[in-house]
């Protein structure tokens, strides 16, 4: 048990928590944008996974991590554009299409990976790290929190930016109107379809970047089905955050820690099956949902297509 408490262990646990939490943060923030606008984006798992694949392939062949993140974002947005076309433009059932996208991308990326790399799993080099001046010199916390890939800091900046966008800009107001009273937004002369399309594309881009981070920084390689439910955890984070980006960050940190425990406990030499620890994040979701069930709030028009003049 002493191994649990020493400094190196704590550092690696927190470092792992950040690495595991950032994809969840990006997916959760992305999902929050969609949900604000009234779109229940069940396909986010597929967007993450496709972003992980495109991001990995781009980084693998170009050797550039930045290019990898951009490609991951574009990959995610590409999948999202399918949701835009089918669900936003034509109003098809968002749940059916969401399931289809997740299943289809799982199959497609596994196929693509097989035809590209056969049964090998090539690794990327260590991802570049920015150690923040001064902050990274703090014992334990410095190494754990302030020497990461730039995407980590960008994700936090994005969270702060979203607080501002939701609270103080027309974009934020439009998004909220599209989810709460789409007819009112339409009457004000703003296109509901365009607003929601923008929201879903943003979700796709962010979760794609999250997926790319997972593959390129977190794992250093791509494995089929590697997102393993992270997208769905993102949906839960967005549900519980009630439209507040800060809560998504807190939630992502919580889940990041429970995910990091998986590896940390093994390193610490605790002899229990990994499956026990793998249950932690999902058990945590259920626990949080049971405790805070009353408080999760979703917009009234969530999941419903907008057809002008109906209802």
């Amino acid at each position, binding site marked *: 048990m002493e191994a649990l408490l020493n400094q190196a262990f704590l550092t690696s646990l927190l470092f792992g928590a950040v690495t595991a939490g950032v994809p969840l943060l990006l997916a959760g923030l992305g999902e929050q944008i969609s949900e604000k606008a009234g779109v229940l984006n069940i396909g986010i798992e597929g967007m993450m996974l496709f972003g992980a694949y495109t991001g990995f392939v781009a980084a693998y062949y170009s050797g550039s991590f930045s290019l990898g993140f951009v490609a991951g974002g574009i990959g995610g947005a590409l999948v999202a554009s399918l949701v835009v076309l089918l669900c936003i433009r034509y109003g098809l059932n968002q749940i059916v299409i969401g399931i289809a996208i997740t299943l289809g991308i799982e199959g497609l990326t596994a196929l693509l990976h097989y035809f590209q790399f056969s049964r090998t799993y090539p690794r990327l080099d260590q991802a570049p790290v920015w150690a923040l001046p001064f902050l990274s010199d703090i014992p334990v916390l410095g190494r754990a929190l302030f020497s990461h890939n730039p995407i980590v800091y960008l994700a936090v900046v994005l969270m702060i930016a979203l607080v501002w966008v939701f609270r103080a800009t027309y974009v934020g107001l439009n998004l909220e109107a599209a989810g709460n009273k789409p007819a009112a937004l339409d009457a004000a002369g703003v296109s509901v379809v365009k607003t929601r399309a923008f929201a879903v594309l943003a979700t796709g881009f962010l979760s794609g970047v999250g997926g790319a981070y997972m593959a390129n920084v977190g794992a250093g390689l791509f494995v089929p089905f590697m997102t393993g439910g992270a997208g769905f955890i993102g949906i839960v984070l967005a549900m519980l955050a009630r439209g507040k980006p800060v809560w998504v960050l807190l939630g992502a940190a919580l889940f990041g820690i429970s995910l990091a425990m998986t590896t940390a406990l093994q390193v610490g030499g605790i002899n229990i*099956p990994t499956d026990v620890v793998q*249950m932690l994040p999902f058990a945590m979701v259920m626990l949080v949902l049971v405790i805070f069930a009353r408080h999760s709030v979703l917009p009234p028009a969530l999941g419903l297509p907008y057809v002008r003049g109906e209802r």
Partner: protein
Amino acid sequence: MRGTGMTAEVHVAQRGAPGHEGGREIVASVLRVAVPILLALVVGGIILLILGKDPIAYYGYVARRGLLTWGGLQETFTRMSPLLLIAAGLIVAFRAGIWNLGGDGQFLLAAVITAALGPALVGVLPKALTLIACVIASAIVAGLWAVIPAILKARYGINEIITSLMMSFLGISFANVLIKLFFWDPSTTVPQTRTLPVEDRLPRLFDTTIHSGVLIALAVVVLVHLMMTRTAFGLKLQVVGANPAAAVHAGLNVAWLTIATFTLSAALIGIGGSVEILGVFGTVRADWNPAFGLLVVPLVFLARFNGYAVIGFTLFFSALMIGGDSAARRIGVPQHFVLVLVALLLIFLAVVEYLDHQRRKRIGA
């Protein structure tokens, strides 16, 4: 909750338009099924072409292996039993407007319970009683696994898609924990449960390799269909699915019905897991997860929640899976291609549903 649009549309469709429109309606309902299947196969074929594989050869091989050889056909019928039982569970839930997507966890937990109980009981109880006890215990455990999502939905309106998926991930890991910590057969190096001897499993049909579980599955699907269409309970569920607000006005106890339906749905899926172990494997190895749960969803939609129709679609899908399994080895197209086909099928189904809806609006039906 939301997302019940499909359910409502099915009811509209079933009433149909009477009189001289009848013939055209039959054509339309055939097209609604045939077009998505064809489109999915064609687009899937294009993907195969892009990947440098011959789609005609692939589909030809799959059809031959899955349906046209005696060995393959027996495997196909055997595969039908878990799929049919999952379909029965999904029909109950979907008709009531409940998205039970936690099938994989429910299925696996049930399978582990059966694999743990079966070998332990078989020396104590007569064979028939052992089989029955396994099925019942598995159904109860799977049903219990759905209780939390059911209560969260019934009491607080929390989206059951998310909660049932979370419980599914949890259940899959928990099944492994059960095997590794409690039911690990000491005589094996790889973690797996003790094995139910072949002679104590579900009896085979005549001289085939098909086990009698397929009969159980067929009976359950028919019973579920009759329950949903011919009983007061089924009718109540349909009302809840079509319009929960109206159901409340009609004095139905929607919360209770939701919990009962969710649990029943999970229990039926659990019977699927139990029968698969009692009929085919006799044991569960750690990390085994066939992940049938989501694959059955499009079949249930294709059948428009009709129990009889789902039997036919399940037959074809089983053939596709069995054929696809050996095509992976023979032609070098990984089994994951079936996932792509399922996704395409779902998308084209939704598209055709939409076009059909537009057409109805135009003709004012």
